[in-house]
């Protein structure tokens, strides 16, 4: 048992935390402290989450009746395009890496900041410029091409502000590339002494793998969108079928980015869930090395499967077979991870805190999302269900059920470390459970109507699907409530929440060895790592965490340097 008194120094509230290290707006806008940049990003993505969420609510309202009168055809097209573009590039891709990745990566590896602090701030400014461009596009009239910008519609036939939307995504792409460069170099160069590669927490592994995927995928998206801009602005016939151009070439370039992009969105969620399950079942993650190879496997094989979005797009049957085969291979590492999480619970000491409820919800929803991925990877079924609501339900299960619930789990787990306050327990658990049921109620009916023939992006649909749409819209109301609730009680906790100790959950990560909120330079003395990650002892676990110091870790990963 470590000496408890040494820990008490950490629990006393500090005065020089990163929050009150400079309170002028200028100090925030020119900060190079990775923790403040994380909060800046946190503001941006929350704003975009609510813009995209508002669009989603309007879509669900429109679809309640078969010939919805809330929007004209053109209005509805611009609405779902807005929902797609903002949710994909302005919330999901940056969500976990730029907020929790920025905040926690240096803390978890025992560094005082990321490798290139100024590049990190520049990345946020690029994200903001991209955000302004997309808001300008939205205000001026929106874009009506769908978030996939398929040519020749986007390059030759669309009358909307395609260039503004394309420029916005181009800029945001380079913002994520900058974050990717930062994370790769940070993990290589700034690990604390003793923190070898296989002692890294799995969250750091997922940030590293996500950075690799970002670096190698985003440039191809930048080019495909730049070619659309070239064709619209200068009339250069690149995808123009009249001059022998091939629209399928655009789809190849676009999906070469956009499938790895879904791994950019889900890998950080894997990292978060591994941390949560390990901490709240008090056990080392089952098969740590297998999890690491699964992460790397997903980020590598994820690049070879993009064609399963194009099975009916006029690709050759040979290519369809190759992509279908590789899509089944990439499903195997995901299956490994689900089973490893499940077996981490075995012989553990399980606490049902709010983050744990989100993590367990994640496993359930991600399993359904992943398995329906097998449906869409097998050729005959995908020929039927592609561009139907079955596919809409599939990617919402993986993105919203997976990535967003992991984001909220991370939010509740590291909230004490970020803000120095504990979130109210009861409300947090209620929100987690509400989100799980609201989500299922919203998206499961879409599987059924998808297979029955409900077309994607149709707002005048055949009347026999109305029952599913009404059910889905009712679920969407519950889901919206489940998303708004945390914004309420977390803001409340900022002012009147219970003060958080350095390690309120008794977790073993290095980020819990410094005070909450941490000082600007993260660690008073640089920690030395002597243990592998997740050294918990479920058998000697002390009783409930109400008693003050009851939850201190037995073997924190790092002693004082």
């Amino acid at each position, binding site marked *: 048992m470590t000496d408890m008194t040494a820990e008490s120094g950490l629990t006393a509230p500090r005065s020089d935390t990163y929050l009150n290290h400079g309170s002028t707006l200028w100090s925030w806008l020119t900060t190079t402290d990775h923790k403040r940049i994380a909060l800046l990003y946190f503001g941006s993505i929350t704003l975009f989450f609510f813009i995209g969420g508002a669009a989603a609510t309007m879509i669900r309202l429109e679809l309640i009746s078969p010939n919805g009168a809330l929007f004209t055809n053109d209005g509805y097209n611009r609405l779902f395009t807005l929902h797609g573009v903002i949710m994909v590039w302005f919330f999901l891709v940056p969500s976990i890496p730029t907020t929790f990745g920025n905040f926690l990566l*240096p803390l978890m590896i025992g560094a005082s*900041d990321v*490798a290139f602090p100024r590049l990190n701030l520049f990345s946020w400014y690029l994200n903001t410029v991209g955000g302004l461009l997309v808001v300008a596009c939205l205000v001026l009239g929106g874009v009506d091409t769908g978030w996939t910008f398929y040519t020749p519609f986007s390059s030759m036939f669309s009358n909307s502000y395609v260039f503004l939307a394309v420029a916005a995504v181009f800029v945001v792409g380079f913002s994520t590339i900058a974050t*990717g460069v930062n994370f790769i*170099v940070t993990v290589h160069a700034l690990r604390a002494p003793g923190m070898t590669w296989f002692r890294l927490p799995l969250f750091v592994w997922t940030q590293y793998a996500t950075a690799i995927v970002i670096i190698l995928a985003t*440039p191809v998206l930048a080019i495909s969108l730049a070619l659309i801009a070239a064709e619209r602005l200068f009339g250069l016939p*690149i995808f123009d079928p009249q001059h*022998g151009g091939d629209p399928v*070439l655009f789809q190849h370039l676009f999906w070469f980015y956009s499938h790895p992009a879904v791994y950019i969105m889900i890998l950080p969620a894997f990292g978060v869930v591994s941390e949560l399950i390990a901490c709240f079942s008090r056990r080392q993650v089952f098969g740590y090395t297998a999890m690491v190879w699964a992460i790397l496997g997903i980020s590598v094989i994820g690049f070879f499967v993009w064609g399963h979005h194009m099975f009916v797009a006029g690709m050759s049957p040979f290519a369809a077979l190759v992509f279908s085969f590789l899509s089944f291979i990439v499903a195997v590492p995901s299956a490994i991870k689900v089973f490893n999480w499940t077996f981490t619970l075995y012989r553990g000491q399980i606490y049902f805190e709010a983050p744990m409820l989100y993590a367990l919800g994640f496993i359930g929803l991600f399993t359904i999302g992943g398995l329906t991925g097998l449906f869409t990877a097998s050729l005959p079924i995908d020929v039927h269900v592609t561009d139907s609501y079955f596919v809409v339900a599939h990617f919402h299960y993986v993105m919203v059920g997976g990535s967003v619930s992991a984001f909220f789990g991370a939010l509740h787990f590291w909230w004490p470390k970020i803000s120095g306050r504990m979130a109210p327990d009861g409300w947090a658990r209620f929100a987690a459970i509400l989100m799980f049921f609201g989500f299922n109620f919203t998206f499961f009916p879409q599987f059924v109507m998808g297979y029955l023939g409900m077309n994607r992006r149709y707002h005048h649909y055949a009347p026999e699907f109305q029952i599913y749409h009404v059910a889905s819209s009712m679920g969407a109301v519950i889901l919206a409530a489940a998303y708004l609730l945390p914004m309420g009680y977390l803001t409340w906790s900022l002012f009147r929440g219970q003060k958080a100790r350095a390690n309120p959950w008794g977790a073993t990560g290095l980020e819990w060895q410094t005070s909450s909120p941490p000082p600007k330079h993260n660690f008073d003395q640089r920690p030395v790592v002597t243990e592998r990650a997740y050294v918990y002892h479920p058998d000697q676990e002390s009783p409930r965490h109400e008693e003050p110091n009851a939850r201190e870790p037995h073997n924190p990963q790092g002693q004082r340097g």
Partner: protein
Amino acid sequence: MSSPALHEPFEAIDRQRLSAALGMWVFLASEILFFGSLFLGFTVYRSLHPQAILEAGRETNVVFGSVNTAILLISSVTMAVADKAAERGLRRMVVGCLAATAALGLAFLVLKGLEYREDIHEHLVPGPDFKLKTPAAQLFFGFYWSMTAIHAVHLTIGIAAVCLFAWRVSRRAFDFTASAALPSLGLYWHLVDIIWIFLYPLLYLGGRAP
């Protein structure tokens, strides 16, 4: 040993230099894929419409292309010498070489401008009054204009950075031997040159043989 160039998160300057180099190489990997997807588009159309692409390939001015390639290769040499001189602390040599590199870059841009003017004059801009009749020939020039334009943008950024560094090195305060940013600038410049090394045969040498 700490020198003024040492940044906050690093304790040792050589570790910081290695990190800067790794960061730049990771960025270069993304640039390889950035231009690589343009090359992919070109190669796909070359396989779909071989005759038309070769026929259009004969329209580009090979003299401009070759002289421009020579200019960029020489600018790589001067940048390499600037890098070596920086390691030895020869301040005036570094400034001289950087200036030469920037000058060669500007020469490339000027020649490129002249070539563009000539292309426009010869109706090589894809559009209704395009010089060649076969429709797929316009695809070649769709890629010609976008590839050379994107390369020229990268080159302009490179020239601006080289001038900035030449000015900073010429002022006494800047400790350029230890600075991690100068070698990274060299890596970026060499990449822009390598991209042109592959653009040259693609756009200028295709279909020349009888």
